[in-house]
């Protein structure tokens, strides 16, 4: 049953335009329809009580939107931002969010026959944030289901914050 459902999901992946970007040399792709805009790196205000991958918030023309570091979110080691770093603003279920990536590459057309289902890495690894694998000119790009990667509800870490607050003032005076 379960494999049937998965197969169905895979079949439903439509080809189309994808925005590709890099994280530690690896190519990833995002459905272009989910992308609102691409901006260069700007001042990010850190927000406390949030997991490490939440870089903070930026002012996008008057709107305050969160920025997520995709390297940290995927467990790739952090690298300092440079002038190639980009923030891709995506629309996740009507909420705008920024994702910081190493660099943005291009927009490519990938037909549905060139998209393969997510390979299985064993049952322990959650792969539902991967839409599929796109093949372009012999290379493989990981196509992300961005709304599965970022859920707008889980930006705040309640527990972490509380422990932080508890040891607030032990060595004063």
């Amino acid at each position, binding site marked *: 049953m379960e494999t049937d459902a998965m197969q169905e999901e895979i079949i439903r992946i439509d080809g189309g335009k994808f925005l590709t970007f890099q994280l530690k040399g690896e190519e990833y792709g995002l459905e272009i329809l989910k992308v609102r805009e691409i901006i260069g790196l700007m001042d990010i205000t850190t*927000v*406390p009580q949030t997991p490490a991958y939440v870089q903070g918030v930026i002012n996008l023309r*008057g709107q305050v939107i*969160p920025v997520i570091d995709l390297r940290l979110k995927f467990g790739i080691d952090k690298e300092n931002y440079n002038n190639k770093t980009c923030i891709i603003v995506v629309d996740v279920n009507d909420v705008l969010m920024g994702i910081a990536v190493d660099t943005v590459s291009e927009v490519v057309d990938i037909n549905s026959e060139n998209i393969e289902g997510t390979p299985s890495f064993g049952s322990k690894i959650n792969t539902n944030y991967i839409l599929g694998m796109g093949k372009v000119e012999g290379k493989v790009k990981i196509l992300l289901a961005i709304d599965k990667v970022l859920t707008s509800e*889980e930006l705040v870490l309640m527990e972490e*914050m509380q422990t932080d607050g508890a040891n607030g*003032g032990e060595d004063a005076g």
Partner: protein
Amino acid sequence: MGTDEFDELRILKETFFAEAQEVFESLDNLLVKLENEPSNFETLNAVFRHFHTLKGSGGIFGIKVLEDITHQLEDLLDYLRSNNIEPSPVIMDILFEGLDILKEVIANYAKGEDTDALTGKYLVKKIKEVLSSKEVKIEKKEADAAGNSLKNLLMELLNDENEKVAIAIKENKNLHYVVIHIDEDCFTKGVDPLSLLKTLDSHGDIVKSKSNIENLPLLKDLDPSKLYIKNIEILYTSNLGSGELNELVKFSDGTLRVEVRQISMEEILKNQQAELFWDASKEEEKTSSPKVPSGKIGDILIEMGEVTEDQLRKALEKQSQPIGRILVAEGATSEEKVEEALLKQKKMGLSSKIPIKVDIDKLDHLVNLVGELVVSQTMVCHNKAMMQFADNDLLKTLSQLSKVTRDIQELVMNIRMLPVKGIFQRMTRVARDVGRKVGKEVEVCIYGEETELDKTMIDEIGDPLLHIIRNAVDHGIENNEERLKNGKYPRGIIELSAYHQGGNIIIEISDDGKGLNRDKILDTALENGLIDGTTVLDDNQIDHLIFEPGFSTADEITGVSGRGVGMDVVKKNIERLKGKVDIRSTPGEGTTFFIRLPLTLAVIDGMVVKVGHERYVIPTVSIIESIKPEKEHLFTVKEKGEMIKIRDELFPVTRLNRLFNVESSSKCPWDGLVILVEGEGRRGCILVDELLGQQQVVIKSLGKGFRGLRGISGGGILGDGKVGLILDTAGILDLSIQ
């Protein structure tokens, strides 16, 4: 196509709801006014008009219940009007009750639910009872009305079209009053009233016609084969005499009956139409009828009988300064009268302004964009690279740009502002109802109802006001006997005023009741453990105890107030609006509440502080003071953490760098600054590195994802366009306790 129609209907409905809400607010106020001055027939007329408006809308949307009730209420009001009867308390109750039912009907309709047709049935019955006790009179009145109908219509026709009539008379034409009675099924009998009208038109002029369309059904019930016009009344001028005219229209067979009456000169003269001829003689000059004020100040003054035309003309000849001032200088009138006239003029101007309705989302978007525009503009103006090459021209342009930007911002902020009138009017009704319930007579006086507040704030301030007014009536105002005994007017007075003060709006609610009972407050506070017996509090501090959670001094819990959830909720709600509430009370003389609110919720006054590389904004309203801490004033108390002593008082200290996990630039607390803040009634200190200064900050929500954040109420766009987090002082104090 289908969705378009649906959309239109939806828009129409939304407009209707908004209008109905306005009408309800006005009615609340008017009815209370009418109750206080039953002899004021102007108020009665206004009430009638408002109910009539509702009835009209009810008809359009086919809300039968609404139509029925308003119709009955109109009957009742009409009966009062035409018989010069002052509304009795029973009638007032019916009116109030009727209004409440109407509110419910509309609310149900808005939710898409039908109101039970039985709702209001008993009210209709009540109205009928009241009316039936005087039924005879009403019938008589109706008979009179029928007799007068012809004369009235004639008068109306003559009044409206006197110019045309005057021309006709000048040309020696005859004036006829023609009534055409038409049967509903005239079309099926092959008679077309239109051809009759055409015949009439070819032999003379139809000056004015009026048709009776009372029978016109709703569109869905309309039968196109029927003519729903019962009769047409026509004022007709022609060279033909009445005999000839009768001959002309005499083909009627019962389906179409025509009555012709010639109107003689005497008749017109008798009907006080002297000015008709005055107009006719001056026709070339195209003088407007003197009954319609032109809106010019001179004309208004003439109309008020304050100056003569001659005086005005003289003044006009040398009009280089305002006409009113010249007239005063001439001794023709007094300054007060001119002012009065000016006020009238202003009102005329106001009535001609037509507001448009705009989606609030669009407005918010505009506010956002303008905020961003301001930030970009500041950044351009402070760009170092550009300033190096700036010449005079560029500087001039830049200063022009910043001025225009600021003007736009101010204007846009203003669009969201609404007068407090509506909410104040609702309060008069609340006071009246509560007064009724507890058997006290209360009058609400409103001042500054045109003061404007942000729309969101208006929506939010309703509940706190309601609580305060309820409390004032229930606890503040004494009962009638007690008031008389204390030498007060038996009717309690609550004053509700709104005004500007130093960039804030103050709403003041004061009653002339007995004031707060401080002994009782102290007792209750002791009982609830809010204070310990040792602290000495001054009067003001005692008064403020009523804002503590779980506080109520009412001897018994009444249905009106005193459930112990009153004033602390008031305080919390107002603080949520970035406002403050204050209280002042004099025993025996009354209590006054001051609610201080920012002009808008979109912008707050904030103190920008720095911790390490991060900047945070602390709302200025919650800051009490900031001090440079001395090393010897800092203590660590076991199980309570760090404390600081400020003027013999100990406050907990929260190190912001630790709480938010940022690296601080100062090594020890005494290198930094301590800010004493208040939040939800508690005080505490926040340790920061540096104060950067005060700034107006546009508040932005951080979005759904950050909803769980504590100690941070939102993000603000700082002067350089970067986001600064706005601290929620109450939340921070909470966090540091844990």
